[in-house]
């Protein structure tokens, strides 16, 4: 816990949304553990995972909330959208119905997050190209029309999985650099790292940029 300085500069909060069975949890586990879980059970409410990534020389901790797609969790999972810096919206390229539901997921994402939230559309199960039910071009057009980033990926082979998580972080980081994200505001889904002064685990960013300089007062 308080052992040693924090080895990251920012925390970004992500949510993963989309119909049940599209592979949200498999994407999370592939990203955090580099493992494919073939018999992944339906998520109960939400599952939490983390990983530290590097963007433009900055270490960033991603805190990821993987939500359950089953209809009866919809009311429950809505409470996790608030304060997400990134939203990964997933459909299954072999099941058209999961693609058709995207507009409803997008409405939730737009209504329940903030205007700067980066939304990344993912067509998962790209390894099952033979069973494809949604073309790349069609989804790409949908993404462009709605201002979303887009890639097809496979949680099974790992193809493009790193990219979707890291591209999202890059875009969020760019928004910060461009001054579009107020680091002191609540609910942006972005936090400066907790000040590395040891002591209590209070992680409220106290406001000034100086707290992110590394190599400050070393604890230990």
């Amino acid at each position, binding site marked *: *816990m308080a052992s040693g300085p924090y080895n990251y500069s920012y925390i970004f909060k992500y949510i993963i949304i989309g119909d049940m069975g599209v592979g949200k949890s498999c994407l999370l586990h592939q990203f955090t*553990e580099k493992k494919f879980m073939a*018999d992944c*059970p339906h998520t109960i409410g939400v599952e*939490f*995972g*983390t990983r530290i990534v590097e963007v433009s020389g900055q270490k960033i901790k991603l805190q990821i909330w993987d939500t359950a797609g089953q209809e009866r969790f919809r*009311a429950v999972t809505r*409470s996790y959208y608030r304060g997400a810096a990134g939203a990964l919206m997933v459909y299954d390229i072999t099941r058209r119905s999961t693609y058709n539901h995207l507009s409803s997921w997008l409405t939730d994402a737009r209504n329940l997050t903030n205007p700067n939230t980066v939304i990344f559309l993912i067509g998962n199960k790209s390894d099952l190209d033979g069973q494809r039910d949604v073309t790349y071009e069609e989804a790409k057009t949908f993404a462009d029309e709605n201002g979303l980033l887009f890639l097809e990926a496979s949680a099974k082979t790992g193809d493009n999985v790193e990219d979707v998580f890291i591209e999202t972080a890059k875009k969020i980081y760019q928004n910060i650099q461009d001054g579009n994200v107020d680091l002191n505001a609540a609910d942006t889904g972005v936090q400066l790292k907790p000040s590395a002064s040891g002591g209590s685990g209070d992680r409220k960013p106290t406001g000034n940029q100086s707290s992110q300089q590394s190599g400050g007062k070393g604890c230990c």
Partner: protein
Amino acid sequence: MADNSELEKAIIGDFIPLAMIQAAEKEYKKKNEEGSLTDQDRFSYAWHLIKSRYKDDIKKGISIMGELCQDGTDQRDYLYFLALAYYKLEEYSEAEQCINRVLHMEPNNSQAKDLKKLVSGKIQQDNLIAAGVVGGAALVGAAAVGTLAVIGGAIVAKLISK
């Protein structure tokens, strides 16, 4: 991967605002008066209560979730949230029983494994405290390193650990 303290913050310390609980309660009461209450409504209300920071809410949530659990379907979900609720009330052996039942149904469920890890950590800690042995504030870490210091009395130990 997330360590225990981070997991605990995310899974257990993830309280929802009072306003949301009140809204859920209003909805629940309305449906109840209309006589149109479904299991989905019960589940949703119980979930809100269990995610509260207040023990009275959590207890109420347990009683509703517990009734649902006896009805047979969707046991796994109810048991998971019951385990979470008991954990928040610091009733770790009840929490363990519930989470074990989930793991019995789905041995590879990563969410259940995460919660089990937290429950086991607490039970281990309580056992150490009961034995009157405690090492510093970071009890579990200290235990791992093996630098246990003996401080007399379970009461002192309990105070330190809370």
